[in-house]
């Protein structure tokens, strides 16, 4: 086995690599970015200067960005050839997660809108 082939061996997710300085540095960068994104999330949720209806969408985007930071800097998921299996499994997982969540929210909100009794009926039922 040549040295080049050796480098193409798969790596496990979460496996640290290289020297102690670069490994620690990766975690420090990840921590910094995660803290920054968390801080922005809490600020966005508290401030009144942003357009109200857009805040929830912004928070979801910030959360997805922070999940990406965790995946890259803590779990060491990369786009390298040694990570193909890990990335493919992740991609499939993300697909299922989005199908389940968006599908449910979409269908259930329509069901609520179309089939739930209106507020006037609910009130009638609760008054007796």
């Amino acid at each position, binding site marked *: *086995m040549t040295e080049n*082939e050796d480098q193409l*061996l*798969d*790596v*496990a*997710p*979460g*496996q*640290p690599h290289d020297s*102690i300085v670069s*490994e*620690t540095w990766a*975690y420090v960068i*990840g*921590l910094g970015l*995660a*803290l920054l994104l*968390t801080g922005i*999330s*809490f600020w966005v*949720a*508290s401030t*009144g200067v942003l357009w*109200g209806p857009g*805040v*929830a969408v912004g*928070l*979801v985007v*910030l*959360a997805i960005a*922070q*999940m990406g930071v*965790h*995946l890259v800097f*803590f*779990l060491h998921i990369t786009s390298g050839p040694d990570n193909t*299996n*890990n990335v493919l*499994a*992740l991609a*499939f*997982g993300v697909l*299922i*997660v*989005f199908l*389940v*969540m968006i*599908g*449910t*929210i979409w269908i*259930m*909100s329509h069901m*609520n809108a179309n089939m739930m009794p209106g507020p006037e009926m609910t009130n009638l039922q*609760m008054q007796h």
Partner: protein
Amino acid sequence: MSTVSETPAVGLTHGGSEDTGLGHRGPESKSIVVPYGFWLFVLSDMVLFSALFATYAALVTATDGGPTTNQLFDRTLVAIETVALLLSSFTCGLAMIAAKRRNMTWTQGWLLVTGLLGAVFLFIELYEFAKMVAEGAPPQRSAFLSSFFTLVGCHGAHVTAGLLWIGTMMAQIWAKGFKEHIVRRLLCLSIFWHALDIIWVAIFTIVYLIGTLP
């Protein structure tokens, strides 16, 4: 002559009559396959959580005249929980760096810090749950509260399992040293712990921050 017949230049399996479908190197080592399998488990765990998130999202307005998200959630507590879990994820990574160097003191130290930060998180979460139940917002109060306790409680149960696992790994490293299979278990633990923090990011955003928007 014989070399030609053993290693044909063309072919999907790069030669050899034993077609394992795993390429010319054969299967990966256990230190790759085991954490990869655990990665698949963690991803399926995230699929499980996605179902709980979907349930919560569908039921969040079904308060049945009871307390709503805005009345129940305390952002300050959630911020402390978030920072504690994030720092524990960080120190878990530092423990892995120390474990790779077979450094007993630093590995045990960082694992201990990881466990303590996880315990801080869990303590605050249980305090919040107890406070909600005392305020008349137990799981049986409304569909919203049932789904809330299921989602956040399931994450809390994972953290509890993680704490037990951290303690187990500290004992195993102490008793058996940095044997290959012990380090492999430690790597699985770190994947698990990092994944819990990823799920918490979704929880504090969707449940707590979006739930307390004015």
